[in-house]
């Protein structure tokens, strides 16, 4: 690993208190280009809040964020907005725009935020939708799509903005089991083509094979982090991560270790 190379995304010392409770305590992490890092941990541990702090949907109380080595100012509205264009986010509940077709969902930010022409925006949107396998659903509304299709549209929507980093907040948790694999296939594709991603998930089998690093968050702190092999296979070390994952293993019936 080149020690002089500036990481694509660097988070330092993020702290956030919500409703009187300290949700995040001094969280730091680094994403190099092409990384797929995974956040796991119990509910309420801060995974979702952390992701929303990274793209400044939630404003951290303390901490710094660096994109390609340059610090992002939390205060300058314009900087925040253009920073968000570089960070894509996939939500657990999809959050598609209900009043727009799939094509419009993907193209609206291109037209209104990036100020592309209608023709260019539609071209790009069509391309992204075909890439996630929904080329035949361009004119369907969210109400007419299955959960897996909705999530793939939201991935296309995020990708159309050419983000440097993609944040995924439990992308398959709201899906019926038989729809999960189609979304995971898309995510796998993205990772293999070099997309930098930070994903919160419970899908342990998926994570084990693809993630560069696993970060275990509990109580607002990163308790452990390391490559999957290290964290999940050392049975005599009895890591906290291993404990958590084996509980998940029982629940999901997947083979972790």
């Amino acid at each position, binding site marked *: 690993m080149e020690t002089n190379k500036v990481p694509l995304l660097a988070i330092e010392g993020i702290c956030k208190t919500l409703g009187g409770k300290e949700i995040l305590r001094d969280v730091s992490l680094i994403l190099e280009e092409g990384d797929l890092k995974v956040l796991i941990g119990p509910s309420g541990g801060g995974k979702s809040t952390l992701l929303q702090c990274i793209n400044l949907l939630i404003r951290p109380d303390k901490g710094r964020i660096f994109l390609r080595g340059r610090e992002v100012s939390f205060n300058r509205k314009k900087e925040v907005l253009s920073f968000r*264009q570089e960070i894509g*986010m996939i939500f657990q509940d999809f959050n598609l725009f209900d*009043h727009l077709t799939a094509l419009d969902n993907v193209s609206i930010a291109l037209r*209104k*935020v990036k100020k592309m022409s209608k023709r260019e925006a539609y071209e790009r949107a069509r391309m992204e939708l075909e890439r996630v396998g929904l080329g035949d659903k361009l004119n369907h509304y*969210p109400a007419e799509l299955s959960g897996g299709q909705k999530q793939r549209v939201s991935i296309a929507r995020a990708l159309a903005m050419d983000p440097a980093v993609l944040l995924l907040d439990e992308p398959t948790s709201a899906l019926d089991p038989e729809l999960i694999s189609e979304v995971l296939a898309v995510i796998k594709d993205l990772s293999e083509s070099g997309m930098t991603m930070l994903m919160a998930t419970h899908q342990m089998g998926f994570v084990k094979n693809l993630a560069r690093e696993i970060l275990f968050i509990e109580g607002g702190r990163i308790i452990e982090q390391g490559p999957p092999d290290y964290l999940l296979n050392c049975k005599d070390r009895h890591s906290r991560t291993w404990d958590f994952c084996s509980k998940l293993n029982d629940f999901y019936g997947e083979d972790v270790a």
Partner: protein
Amino acid sequence: MLDLSFYTQQVIPALNRGLMVTLSLIFPSATLGLVVGIIIGVMRAFGGRFWSRFATAYATIFRGTPLVVQLFILYFGLPNLGIYLSPYLAAVIGFILCSGAYHSEYIRGAILSIKRGQVLAAQSLGFSSWGTLLHIIVPQAIRRALPGCGNEIIYLIKYSSLAYIITCIELTGQGKIIATRTFRFTEVFLVVGFYYLVLVSMATIFLNWLERKLYIPGFGRS
């Protein structure tokens, strides 16, 4: 009762004069009432502590008291403070304030029914607050609020008849004048009723057409 010339020579022309006044009451009241409703509804949904409370108080008061009382206060009461409004003006102001309160209820409901996640998604794509409001919230809120606000305007068509009580002679007023003069209350008011039925039916048909035109799957009537 079936004396046709009575209708054609006396009733219809007078009622038509009244109809013109009714229409001149309805159009400004409906449009401005909707504008007021949007402002108050947005205040109730997004306003800070002061503005949302103010807006809610306004809506509660105007929905909790009869329109008749409001009109009386505007026309008969304000002179006590030295403010003299014409019957027409008092009626229009009363209609705007009252229907604005009802509209605000539908608009507030429409805005709040939009899933918050969509706002998050818009922000995460880099939309500014204005952009989110304009491109994401407003198009959906209009569709959600349409049945309620449309119905409110239809109510306005009917309640415009109350302008007569504060001496603004519109359709109903003209009817009363003719009926009192000729003692033929039943006939005259059946015709008056018919006029309103036509107005209301036309408005309902238009509203249904508008709802169909703006229909998007997933936005069915709640």
